[in-house]
């Protein structure tokens, strides 16, 4: 019933071709784009992005602020749609999926980790982690058991009953990672997951990602500004003004 049919493992997990993203803004709003004279201004953020990411890869995306990293991540995470171009996830054309199927893909196949953690307020860490399971139709007691196990795995076993505002940034990000992992996704997308964290905590979070990639074979795509974070990964893609300008392995 998963909308994604597992295709031959030779296929890349992520394949995008000539991806373009254009935002239409009301005129008057500033922008470096071209006016089309119709009261709106179009601003193109992604230009012809093509890339493939295979199962088990650990990829860092870098680039200046405003270079389109988040825009690309949102498209990869099925939270947004490209203006043109194609995106195949595990061999399936994302453009052909319905809203419900996209929700299912976000629920089962992808785990998203945000810079700002994006936990549900006034809800315990345990319930936060368990929520994706509820959307997957798992009953409450089973989902709580699984959520507890994941919190334990990310080192937060004792904080299950805490609410986000009672946790430190690093702890909140661990909750968010547990939540991303709870449905056993093939892919984790992390948009500046250490952006709000100090160096020490960032290192701990990166260790979790490395372990997930190494020991569980989970594909991870991670956006970062920092070179030492990128150095933890095995492939680096650089974006500049919406174009891929660099794509190479990270020397070990």
């Amino acid at each position, binding site marked *: 019933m998963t909308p994604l049919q597992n295709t031959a493992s030779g296929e890349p997990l992520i394949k995008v071709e000539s991806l373009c993203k254009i935002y239409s803004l009301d005129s008057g709003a500033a922008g470096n784009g071209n006016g089309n004279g119709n009261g709106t201004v179009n601003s193109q953020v992604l230009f012809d992005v093509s890339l493939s990411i295979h199962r088990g890869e650990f990829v860092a995306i870098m680039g200046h602020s405003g270079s389109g990293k988040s825009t690309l991540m*949102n498209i990869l*995470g099925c*939270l*947004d749609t490209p203006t043109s171009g194609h995106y195949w996830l595990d061999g399936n054309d994302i453009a052909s999926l319905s*809203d*419900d199927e996209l*929700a*299912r893909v*976000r*629920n*089962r196949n992808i785990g*998203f980790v*945000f810079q700002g953690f*994006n*936990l*549900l*307020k*006034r*809800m315990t860490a345990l319930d936060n982690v368990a*929520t*994706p399971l*509820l*959307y*997957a*139709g798992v*009953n*409450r007691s089973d989902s709580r058991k699984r959520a507890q196990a994941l919190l334990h795995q990310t080192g937060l076993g004792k904080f299950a009953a805490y609410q986000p505002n009672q946790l430190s940034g690093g702890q909140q990000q661990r909750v968010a990672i547990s*939540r991303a992992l709870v*449905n056993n996704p093939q892919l984790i997308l992390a948009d500046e997951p250490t952006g709000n964290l100090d160096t020490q905590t960032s290192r701990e979070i990166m260790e979790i990602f490395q372990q997930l990639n190494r020991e569980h074979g989970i594909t991870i795509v991670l956006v970062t500004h920092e070179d030492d974070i990128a150095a933890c990964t095995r492939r680096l893609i650089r974006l500049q003004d919406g174009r891929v300008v660099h794509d190479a392995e990270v020397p070990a």
Partner: protein
Amino acid sequence: MSLLAIIGEALRALRLNRLRTGLTMLGMIIGVAAVVLMLAIGQGAQTMVNQAISSMGSNLLIVVPGATSSGALRSGSGAVQTLTMSDAQAIASLPSVKATAPLITGTAQLNYGANNWSTVVTGVTPDYFEVREWAAESGALFTEADVRSATRIAMLGQLTAKNLFGDEDPTGKMVRIKNSPFLIAGVLAVKGQSLDGRDQDDAVFIPITTGQRQIFGNQFPGTIRFLMAQAESAEMMEEAEAEMNQLLRQRHRVAEGMENDFTVRNMAALTAVATGAAKVMSIMLGAIASVSLLVGGIGIMNIMLVSVTERTREIGIRMAIGANRRAILMQFLLEALVICILGGLAGIAIGIGGAWAVSEAVGMVVVITFGTVVLAFAFASGVGIFFGFYPARKAAALKPVEALRYE
């Protein structure tokens, strides 16, 4: 996501905003309580009218002295003495008329031992009880023979009996009416309120002849206050009315083109008006109360819209972790529905309590039917679905990336 889990999420969200939930619910509680209370009062009025009508007796026509349009009718009891016992007998022999009951009335003081009670004394023939469909609860009705010989015998209404005798059985006892001793033949069954609001059980009945000769001695012999006639059937009411008019014009020698010196009232027409009025009142009360329900509903929509805007980011997060549109829609719809159902239940309870308080305080008849409760509940749920749907759909229609970016 299972419905149960969605209900859980909805309840959690409502609990987080207790004050707001409570205030929104209050609008619903007031609306539903008002509807229940108004329906209870309206249906109470209808019930009262229906009881009064059925207590009147069926297929009833009433003949009173005096013309409809002249001032004579206004001059009140006994001023015009144009109806007689023989008029009543003549009407009784009409083919469309089953029975007639002539009657005279007056007030008098009744004494039994140390108790006294002032009430309406009505002089009637036994036919009166037939026409009014009024049976004796204890003892027996007085008879034609009592009328012929003008016996001092009386039938008591329930209230009069209770006031004079308390728990004693009055049958066979002697009571004094205007200081004359009367034997009590029996006590009549409970009759309740009349259409004009009088308690019909506050009465005493004596043979009409006894009344004419001994109690209301100042009246012209043989004249009556008014008479009741019962038509053979409901279909024959109009025929009876026409025949009675014709007969009485003849008997009273009313010249061609002259006004009647009597008036025949068809009670069927009157009761239709009364029933109609009670129904209209009931509907109007309900309609007025529904407005408050509507206002409550708009309050819910308003709060739900605010809530959707406030929780845009939450919606974005939920979508990012796998909530589909249906799950988001259901969550917000159920929040509105829970407010309405809980508010509706509280409103029904308060409405019933209010109706009880009204009936206790002003003695109004209130009637709460199962239908009223079901209607109020259905209304409340309907309001929740109707006014909750738009905000819920708005939430569900958000794009994940835009909802997530919302500050």
